[in-house]
């Protein structure tokens, strides 16, 4: 590796300094939280839906190679073409090659995290192909030259006012009225849809038996991207496949409620192959690019494979106290939050901070919220174990050693008590020492005369009191 690894601690401290972004994020997440609670509360059978979804996802993981073969056969049978890519970089060049060979100059894109994983836009740009994001949030991010901060709502960290300023700069036309702002974006995007040589979309669920690419959205831009231009390229990671249409329905039962609190999204598209003889519309060519990027290895790893159940609903991000405070960019990876902290370090490209699994308060809100039944705390624990194996953690080792010897343990605390008044000063003198870091926002609690030395007298007194009462 030539690049130095990302440092989440530094990046998050910086992000936390940006009060404005924090306030925006806070408001947006609060909103999602209310929506989700409302929908889950209105769904008395949420737990059963969840159990069915977990079973479908586990079926996928149990039969993945077989299902992928089936998917390939089905897609081919309906006039599509399947391409496999082992790394993000090879996937990006594969897509670029498909487009260049056909002389494509303009591509419209529906929101796809896999495309982010491939760094596709940069690669296309280098090849002289203009790629326009058409999801409103993603479009805003592209105009602003940023990266998505949430896997579902890429512009979660941007306020209405900031978008308004951005539009004024980019289009010379703006508003703070949301319908009007949407109209401005739409005016610019419509031209692109009509002129595009190809459309690139993601894929929420690929159905092996029918060769169908299923996509959920609220804006309609993905449906246009996949049906309007002459070429449709859908991008997926290999675990997105399910066996049957009925299995897809089971996932659809749970994905929108967990993601946005909706029972169904506004648009639910099933793309099945290219235009057939006698059909009047639809793309003439359909390609499905299936990216691995380390996922085969995860599948082969029994302790971690359950992360591949993920259906990318974003719920774990929305409840994570760390994500909620620092926002998505601090992670420096495509996938932030709890699911990202598990999967990013396992990906071949852009794994982020190797210590990411440690940036966790162990609150388990993620696993409680996850519709796919992923036990993030256990997976993060396993990842921490693997990182710890390779390093010496002196303070932890010393503390554990002391804890094996009660006399030493008690002795160390007694020494601490001796210096107690001085310890209070640590925050001022050494703000970067462990105690100092803890004390930046906290008053020193002080070490007290141990409980064990008080117990005998207390027990005696309580007994007397109790006797008096009886």
């Amino acid at each position, binding site marked *: 590796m030539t690049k130095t690894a990302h440092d989440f601690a530094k990046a998050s401290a910086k992000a936390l300094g940006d009060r404005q972004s924090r306030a925006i994020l806070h408001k947006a997440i609060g909103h999602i939280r209310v929506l989700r609670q409302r929908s889950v509360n209105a769904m008395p059978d949420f737990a059963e839906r969840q159990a069915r979804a977990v079973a479908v996802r586990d079926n996928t993981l149990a039969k993945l190679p077989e299902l992928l073969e089936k998917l390939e056969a089905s897609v081919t049978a309906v006039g599509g073409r399947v391409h496999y890519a082992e790394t993000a970089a090879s996937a990006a060049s594969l897509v670029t090659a498909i487009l260049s060979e056909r002389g494509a100059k303009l591509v419209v894109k529906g929101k796809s995290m896999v495309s982010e994983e491939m760094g596709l836009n940069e690669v296309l740009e280098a090849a002289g192909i203009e790629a326009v994001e058409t999801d409103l949030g993603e479009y805003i991010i592209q105009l602003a030259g940023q990266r998505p901060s949430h896997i579902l709502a890429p512009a979660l960290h941007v306020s209405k006012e900031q978008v308004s300023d951005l539009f004024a700069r980019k289009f010379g036309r703006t508003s703070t009225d949301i319908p009007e702002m949407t109209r401005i974006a739409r005016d610019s995007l419509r031209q692109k849809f009509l002129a595009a040589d190809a459309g690139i979309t993601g894929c929420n669920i690929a159905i092996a038996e029918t060769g169908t690419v299923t996509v959920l959205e609220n804006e309609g831009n993905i449906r246009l991207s996949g049906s309007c231009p002459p070429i449709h390229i859908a991008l997926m990671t290999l675990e997105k496949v399910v066996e049957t249409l009925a299995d897809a329905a089971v996932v659809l039962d749970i994905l929108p409620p967990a993601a946005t609190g909706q029972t169904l999204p506004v648009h639910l598209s099933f793309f099945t192959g290219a235009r057939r003889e006698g059909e009047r519309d639809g793309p003439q060519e359909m390609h499905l690019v299936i990216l691995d990027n380390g996922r085969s290895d995860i599948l082969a790893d029994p302790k971690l494979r359950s992360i591949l159940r993920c259906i990318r609903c974003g719920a774990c991000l929305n409840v994570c106290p760390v994500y909620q405070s*620092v926002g998505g960019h601090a992670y420096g990876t495509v996938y932030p939050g709890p699911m990202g902290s598990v999967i990013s370090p396992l990906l071949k490209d852009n794994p982020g901070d190797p210590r990411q699994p440690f940036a966790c*308060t162990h609150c388990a809100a993620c696993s409680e919220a996850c519709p796919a039944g992923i036990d993030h705390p256990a997976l993060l624990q396993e990842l921490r174990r693997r990182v*710890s194996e390779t390093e010496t953690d002196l303070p*932890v080792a010393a*503390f*554990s050693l002391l804890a094996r010897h009660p006399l030493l343990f008690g002795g160390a605390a007694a020494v601490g008590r001796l210096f107690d008044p001085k310890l209070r000063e640590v925050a001022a003198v050494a703000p970067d020492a462990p105690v100092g870091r803890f004390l930046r926002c906290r*008053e020193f609690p002080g*070490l*007290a*005369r141990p409980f064990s030395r008080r117990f005998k007298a207390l027990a005696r007194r309580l007994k007397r009191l109790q006797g008096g009462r009886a």
Partner: protein
Amino acid sequence: MEAFLFIPCLVEHVLPHVGEATTAVLVRAGVTPTLPKGQTCCGQFAYKRGRADLVRPLARRFVEIFQDAPAVVCPSGSCTAMVRRYPSLFAEDDPFREQAAQVAAKTFELGQFLVERLGLTDLGARCDLTAALHGSCQTTRVLGAGSATEALLAKVAGLTLVPLARPERCCGFGGAFSIDYPEASEAIVAEKIDDIVASGAEAVITAEPSCLLNIASAMAKRDLPIRALHLAEVLAGEGI
């Protein structure tokens, strides 16, 4: 009945009054508490750093100390959850796993012990306060003992509980997290305190000493006149 007290290191050295209140509550519940010698730390700190190897010797010590206990009671949800996890640290075919499982099965967080084991919710406690409950993540989600805390508090005379805007939200301590990521930890605890202030509570109650310490010392830094109380202190009332 008799119960062995399992006193977390944080309670032993920093919050001994929580241990005292726990003792008083048990006596009030008709339980005779015993304090076995030689307790240190359950190893949670090392565990969360991914160092189960450093926890195993501590688990062995713990099992040795507590194996003869009729029941083990601890005023901490997170330390109880750690002990409940001990068996999983040993291989399936390791005979020690079974021994650890026996001790884990009889180890309870204080509220859990009173409600689930003794079937008690009303201890005749009185506490004239308007308070908010911080249901610690480890006690509620990890250990699953949140409803016991709530049931006990519901029976405290004079206590008015006010809801927090985000009751399920973590306080941002997370053990080493607060040292490794002080800025994020500070931001999270600040939001917790904002919620407590907004609730109008005079006190915040929790069944977890580490949350108690985190919230109390951060509130002290802000000079807030809000008290932070452990569940045991509320249940002990004037008992000590």
